[in-house]
């Protein structure tokens, strides 16, 4: 009989000592191993909705699609809209719709990667872009097995975002400050955003870009190519 509550059952305490994110972390490990074996650089793009992740991808594809093999996993709560934009650029894309969840997890990426391979039909893949669901909070908790996490903050969002969303900055290797052509129209302090971001993560690579004027796109492409050949 149970001493604690007198319920007539036996109670036992089992030591567990495991991460709350165990299932995701194990699948992320398997994804990364798989990407490594195939020589694929996996890049996880995270940002708020509307920062320009898909537009940056379109520009990146324009610049690189004849040089390297690119594939894209598009994360959204609903619709195929982004995958359709990417396919128009002549690159295979799989839309991952989470049906409500505010982030991708590594199990969904695993599934998406295999669907992408069917579209590739044996063609070589060098860089896999994973465009996460637009959200600056939750995606930063979930390792997808990527090699490179890139966070975008656009000028209209404001220079205070690194301090407000520190985990996104701390877990990323690069920060793209997008829509830089809009700086003259906003009270946006470029020095402050860089200083705050670097104080959170001193090794962060920061690139100002504008898909409109082309500013910074070469620097971004060179950064990617450098990572690919490392």
């Amino acid at each position: 009989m149970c001493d604690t509550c007198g319920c007539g059952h036996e109670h036992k305490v089992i030591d567990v000592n495991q991460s709350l994110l165990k299932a995701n972390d194990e699948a992320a490990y398997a994804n990364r191993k798989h990407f490594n074996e195939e020589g694929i650089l996996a890049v996880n793009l995270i940002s708020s909705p509307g920062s320009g992740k898909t537009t940056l991808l379109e520009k990146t594809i324009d610049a690189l699609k004849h040089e390297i093999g690119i594939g894209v996993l598009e994360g959204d709560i609903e619709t195929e809209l982004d995958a359709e934009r990417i396919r128009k650029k002549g690159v295979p894309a799989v839309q991952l719709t989470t049906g409500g969840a505010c982030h991708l997890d590594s199990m969904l990426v695993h599934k998406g990667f295999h669907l992408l391979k069917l579209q590739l039909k044996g063609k070589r893949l060098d860089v896999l872009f994973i465009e996460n669901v637009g959200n600056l909070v939750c995606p930063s908790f979930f390792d997808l097995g990527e090699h490179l996490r890139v966070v975008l903050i656009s000028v209209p969002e404001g220079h205070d975002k690194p301090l407000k969303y520190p985990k996104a900055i701390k877990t990323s290797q690069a920060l793209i400050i997008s829509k830089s052509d809009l700086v003259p129209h906003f009270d946006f302090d470029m020095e402050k955003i860089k200083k705050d971001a670097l104080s959170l993560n001193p090794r962060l690579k920061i690139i100002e870009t504008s898909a409109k004027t082309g500013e910074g796109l070469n620097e971004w492409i060179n950064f990617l190519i450098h990572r690919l050949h490392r």
Partner: protein
Amino acid sequence: MHEVSIALGMIHELERIARENNAKKITNVKLKIGKMSGIVVDSLTFAFDAVKLENPVVSDAALSVEEVPLVYECNDCSKTFETDNLYFPSCPVCASYKLKIISGEEQHIENVEIEV
């Protein structure tokens, strides 16, 4: 909102633990959540209490959460100190920013109490 996903993953693991230990029910789950884990304990408890109802093995389980303080050790003077400053802490003795985190990032299940 990631707390809902975390609660769902937790239920999945608890079902496995119950199965492996021939448990009729899980009655208590003890978690350790660090101050800097980014998990909001109230949100996680709310999410867990909502999603647990779908499974009779865990539907009566209570969560007990130990919140782990944020503790750093200074690389320059070796002072160990607790702080509430999550992102820009410095050593209270020598003001150094070269710090090593000792605790505060925990996000794990410590143990579970089962009924057999």
